[in-house]
């Protein structure tokens, strides 16, 4: 896999924006993940020492929340909606199509490191079900062809 290893350089400077209080923990983890795509182990230790929290405690909070990841991600994150509306409108078919187009299953990253596929509970665009989100953009009223076109656009971009 060609996944970029983030630089684990000093992040202290970035942390200074946050008060040294317990309530800063989740916002800091979100920021780290936003920048690196996941939470590298040594970052969690640094965050812990900045907030005077044991690394094990940082880890315990991070693992509670579905948003946090401990493995690097592909370049684009595909979130396939499996909310109620999408479920009755064929979310399983969307998943089948995405999986077979990319050759990666739910929770996995494609071999070229371009896409990671995840499922989410609802994207809040239920009247355009079935829907999926790639990075920050939601695509609605999905059909097999539309999914292929969207994925093709992303691949073309990189190509």
């Amino acid at each position: 896999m060609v996944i970029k290893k983030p630089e684990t350089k000093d992040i202290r400077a970035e942390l200074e924006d946050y008060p040294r209080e317990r309530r800063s923990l989740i916002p800091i983890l979100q920021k780290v993940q936003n920048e690196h795509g996941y939470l590298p182990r040594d970052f969690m230790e640094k965050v812990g020492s900045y907030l005077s929290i044991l690394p094990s405690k940082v880890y315990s909070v991070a693992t509670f929340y579905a948003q946090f990841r401990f493995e690097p991600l592909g370049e684009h994150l595909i979130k396939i909606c499996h909310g109620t509306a999408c479920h009755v409108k064929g979310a399983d078919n969307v998943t089948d199509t995405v999986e077979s187009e990319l050759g990666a299953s739910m929770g996995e990253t494609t071999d070229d490191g371009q896409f990671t596929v995840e499922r989410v509970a609802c994207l809040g665009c239920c009247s355009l079900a079935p829907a999926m989100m790639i990075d920050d953009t939601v695509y609605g009223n999905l059909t097999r062809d539309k999914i292929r076109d969207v994925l093709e656009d992303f691949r073309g971009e990189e190509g």
Partner: protein
Amino acid sequence: MKENIEIKVGYASCGIAAGAAEIYERLEQEIEENDYPVSLTKVGCVGMCHNEPLIELENPGGTSFTYGNLEEDDAGRILESHIGKNTSYEDKLIPGKADYDYFSSQQKVVLRNSGIIDPEEIEEYLDRDGYAALGEALDQDGSEIIQLIKDSKLRGRGGAGFPTGVKWSFARDAGSDQKYLICNADEGDPGAFMDRSVIEGDPHALLEGMVIAAHAIGADQGYIYCRAEYPLALKRLSIAIEQARSRDFLGNNILDSGFSFDIDVSKGAGAFVCGEETALMKSIEGERGMPSSRPPYPAQEGLFGQPTNINNVETLASVPWIVRNGAEEYREIGTENSGGTKVFALAGKVERGGLVEVPIGTSLEEIIFDIGNGIEGSKDFKAVQLGGPSGGCLPESQLDTPVDYETLTDAGAIMGSGGMIVMDEDDCMVDVAKYFLDFTQEESCGKCTFCRVGTKRMLEILERITSGEGEKKDLEKLRKLAPKIEEHSLCGLGQTAPNPVLTTLRYFEDEYAKHIEEGSCPAGVCRELITYRIKDDCIGCTTCSQECSVDAIDGESGSRHVINQEKCIQCGTCLEVCPVDAVEVV
């Protein structure tokens, strides 16, 4: 008379998902290139998601035209028609707000500005009397405002329907110098998107409601806990907060009243249980979002151990309207026990889905059939699911139920947050029950044994039934487990988790029986109980065999194809792609 044509593009997440960004760009480009006298704005959700992407065009003379289901090329054509030929562009013209029966039984209180104003411009909110309610409220004592809210019979829109004024009075009476106000914008119920739309379409209404609530209870710090899956809502919130601060509606000494209050936004981290108020507060504190037992209630000991009042987005966004129009007017909209309107997110197999705001007490039938225009295609209505994972599925015989807290609970569903998913004859009720159990099982925080293990046992039973291995006594087991889970769970998640199973059992027991006794799924959904077959009508076009992801279809071009049942995974692709409807489910 205005000089310019005004065009408003519906630019909420749903509009963008349907292609609003491309339409906006094309309009912008055409206007620039041709130097058209047009002013272009982005507005929130108008509520007609079934017509997205859509725009509203207003002539200098004041006549307005609505265009829907647009494609990129329509942008130029609409402009050409209006500017070059001075006529409307008939192809994509749809009825507008004033003359569309979709809106005739709706009443907009919470959504009064959504789809009308640019949510990123505070001026537009001010032009529609924005922050006037705050001015009025600051002149009153907190107890007067609380009385007004009590009189209005506003009840919490987050699901449980607790009277808002009463809740505020608890927080006001709590003795402490430090109190907090939290807005719950976690909106975790799958199938619900009202809160997102309110924030994306009219964020200042929420902020104004929050400042009024804070003044009433005496809080000086507020938090909005918004889920991370809503990037646009988060962005518009932070813009609105900055604007409100710069105009003295937030911060120190608001409008010279001596009252100070500010708001921070906390971004959720993807745990459904954090929508529950005690878990939510733990999450803001930087802990694992585990619910705790009440009492103590948040009003006594909430965030950081201080008295805290927590309300849903829609609850708070209703407040400015009530202050401006009076308790009586609000109360009269609703029913005896519950004032005002409720916003529903209408979706699923309904023809006209979208965001619908109706007086409390409106019947399900009116919402689904008059507003939503019934089932899409030529299928029959089967059930409507309300209240997400805590709610239930109601059948046709219950369609005359008025939407109100008590009536819906009696029918077996709940008002819930407002998700309303319509299902047709192709939906399997056992599958739906399994879907929700799977959800709660996944989202249970694991603290209570009955919620953690009990839901797992129920899910296993449902999995057996949907794979054809159910036994007669399974239904009894489900009925026995349910009350135990309800009784021994600490928070609403576990207490309501069995609901989707119980209501489907109550109204659709036949369907369960067919799965168990005949090993068949009448709706044709449960993959292990159905077989796909290709009929004589097959023309041998090879489309299905090319599309089949597991190469389960054999046949020469021009001759009838056959599905290899050993390989088939029942995904239904062949049925979907067949141009001559030659694939059947048995």
